[in-house]
């Protein structure tokens, strides 16, 4: 099964430039884990970064910059701590670095919909969580106050934009109000990176609202 829905080129360029915040970087990295096509594009955008860097206008360095750097060349290389996978029962398809993060427990947020927060190692404007629901269930209808990136890990959902299976990437902002519904088959688990607050539609959504303060 191949990936159909990709992040747009500007998002991939922002990823390559290091301009996305950690939460959004995780969502794009999750897609990249499944998509060789976008990995190629990220590689190409890094080459753009290299070409622009090579030709950038130079800034004046401190007069002792080279000497200070030369003096540090013999310092021992700091060891990079290996990071172990800490959480259990993780779905497949997560980028390796995310597997070493701390995951909260699954909690119920609506009938048959549950959510599992991912604890980021730094403050981020973006909240990241896994969202899970079985076949036939609506994946929470909501409005956005900020952009939201979703990448499917297992199963599939469908909305007006098409069918989203493993690796597919969906971008939502305040201009869309989709009603994703899980397709027949295994449970659908998605990674969601969300900025701003969610305005849940309907009384059930409002009931779930307090649970989403991650």
């Amino acid at each position, binding site marked *: 099964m191949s990936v159909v829905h990709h992040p747009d080129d500007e998002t991939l360029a922002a990823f390559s430039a290091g301009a996305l915040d950690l939460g959004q970087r995780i969502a794009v990295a999750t897609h990249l884990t499944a998509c060789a096509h976008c990995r190629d594009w990220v590689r*190409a955008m890094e080459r753009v970064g290299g070409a622009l860097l090579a030709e950038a206008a130079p800034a004046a360095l401190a007069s002792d910059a080279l000497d200070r750097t030369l003096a540090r060349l013999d310092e021992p290389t700091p060891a990079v*701590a290996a990071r172990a996978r800490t959480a259990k029962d993780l779905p497949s398809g997560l980028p390796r670095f995310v597997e070493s993060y701390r995951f909260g427990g699954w909690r119920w947020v609506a009938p048959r919909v549950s959510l599992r927060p991912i604890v980021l190692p730094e403050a981020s404007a973006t909240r990241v969580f896994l969202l899970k629901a079985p076949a036939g269930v609506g994946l929470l209808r909501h409005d956005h106050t900020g952009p939201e990136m979703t990448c499917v890990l297992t199963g599939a959902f469908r909305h007006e934009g098409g069918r989203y299976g493993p690796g597919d990437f969906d971008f939502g902002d305040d201009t869309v109000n989709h009603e994703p519904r899980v397709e027949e088959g295994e449970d659908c688990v998605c990674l969601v990176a969300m900025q701003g607050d969610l305005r849940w539609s309907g009384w059930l959504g409002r009931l779930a609202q307090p649970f989403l303060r991650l």
Partner: protein
Amino acid sequence: MIQNAAPRVLRAMYVSTLNLGLPPPPGVFRAALTALRRTSARRFTSNSTPNLTTVPDNRTASARDDRWVALIHAIGARQDRQAFAELFGHFAPRIKSYLQRTGASEAQAEDVAQETMLSVWRKAALFDAASAGVATWIFTIARNSRIDAFRRERRGGAIRVGDAEAEFEIDPTPGAEARLAAGQADARVREALAELSEDQLRVVRMSFFDEIAHSDIARTLQIPLGTVKSRLRLAMKRLRGILDQDL
């Protein structure tokens, strides 16, 4: 500026091989000479409008790329400090200006530029010329160092070394990108950039280098926000069109 590049490179290479304990990189002089011929031929045929883009002529650039690869190998193989100094001379001031454009203070930019070059020294033996050009490789190290430094500052030094690097290591399995050698791929990217209009190149550069919202780009360039977005989208589409065939 393109028309002077080839003689300058020749002169710089001549001087640096005199000063350096490096063997003269094979083929580089020939390449630069070819570049000289090419650029002087092209000088009269290319458009006469002053070109603000600094994307260099490909032959010139690839001769320079070869030189940089030789420098990195000299560092990796035998900790050649003079090779390091030469690389530092080109890249450190440019990394600093890149960092300042992304919003770093002068002091931060200076620190991270030095930190980046220190990583270049330490990782030189790991450099794989088959997978990325030197400038691209240094760009990714600078990008990662910038992210780590920003975190270190916000968290008071609690960040682990190399966190950002891990976040960009998606999958070691090479995809279709392995079809082209890194040098060729870099050349294609340069060609693609050179094909962009000046306006398109400007928004690409800003969105790449400047950590500012598109709305700020609009204000700086005094064009409507929609124009920034469509210009960037168009530029990306053009890059995509040129690069997709062979990258």
